């Protein structure tokens, strides 16, 4: 894998140097005809932006699902495409989202924080909503992460009792979790209401 990466980068470097040579030639030509100088500037700028935008990162190699650290608590999306789980890799305990179709990890900006442990993930139909347990203010709370708006909502703020093991319905409207409110484990259901955007499989 390292070798292929190295080959790719050298190839890219070679192409880039060729491009630079070409640009230098162009600039020499342009010097002879100052009339075209302003135009060439624009051309160079647009070319540069093109190069930046199209910088090849190499064909995305499939990422492995497991690591040599503990990977646990799997949760599947409704269509079976996404897999959320908890991993101890990278020196911290985080929730990761893996795309089983493209075999790549999906970024979850703002979800994993350094000062909180996230646990017990569960995901909706297309993994738009992720519910999990996080120690928000030193107390475990059921939280909901929206991958589209990149926002986190604490669903059990002000709730009396210990909470554990949340699970979200495929459409994202209902969440069940365990509660210790009556001195034993019971099941409680949260309704997010009719106003929310449901996570439908057809994307409508």
């Amino acid at each position: 894998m390292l070798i292929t990466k190295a080959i790719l980068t050298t190839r890219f470097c070679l192409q880039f140097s060729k491009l630079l040579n070409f640009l230098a030639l162009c600039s020499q030509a342009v010097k002879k005809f100052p009339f075209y100088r302003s135009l060439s500037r624009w051309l160079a700028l647009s070319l540069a932006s093109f190069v930046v935008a199209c910088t090849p990162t190499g064909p995305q190699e499939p990422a492995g699902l497991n690591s040599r650290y503990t990977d646990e608590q799997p949760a599947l999306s409704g269509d079976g495409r996404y897999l959320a789980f908890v991993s101890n890799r990278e020196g911290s305990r985080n929730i990761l989202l893996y795309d089983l179709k493209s075999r790549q990890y999906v970024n979850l900006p703002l979800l994993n924080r350094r000062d909180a442990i996230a646990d017990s993930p569960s995901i909706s139909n297309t993994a738009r909503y992720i519910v999990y347990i996080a120690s928000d203010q030193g107390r475990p709370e059921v939280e909901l992460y929206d991958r589209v708006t990149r926002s986190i909502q604490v669903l059990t703020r002000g709730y009396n009792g210990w909470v554990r093991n949340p699970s979200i319905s495929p459409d994202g409207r209902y969440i069940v979790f365990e509660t210790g409110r009556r001195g034993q484990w019971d099941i409680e259901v949260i309704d997010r209401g009719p106003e929310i955007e449901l996570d439908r499989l057809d994307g409508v």
Partner: protein
Amino acid sequence: MQFKIINRFFYLGAIVLSGTLSSCSVYPRILNFPYDPGGRSLNSPAGDINPQISGRYIVFGSDREGRQDIYLYDNQDRRLIDLPGINALDTIASHPAVSQDGNYIVFCGSREGRTDIYLYNRPTRQLRNLTESLKAEVRNPTISADGNTISFEAGAQGQWNIMVIDRTGNGLNIPDVLR
């Protein structure tokens, strides 16, 4: 004069009352599910654990019958659904998950000192051991809402790793270990 003041207070009270009443319908809110001491509902005097919701179904584990079994609750009809053949006297069942149509339930079953992942087919009432040939400790199974993909943890490599299989028990083609 006094009457007018009382009247004003009445209106004020009415406004406050209506305000608090309408704020009660704010979402997200906790739904009230029936609690039955006889064990015929979602919650019972026994421990009810590991709930998983999929569409109209909530599947969970409970020791309400004096042993740890799997139960399926219908959200819409608000009743427990019979699962003939899923719970055995010699098996500790835990960590269930159900597909959206309620036809497939996966769970962890511990029998004769060995823990395996079982798939229950509700229409045919058949129970299938998905990890019979796997020489590893397994736990925490889950099934996708469409019922086609199953994932669980296996300790085959000396640590917990995640395995993904289809409903027939075949492994999905996923690059495994990244070292």
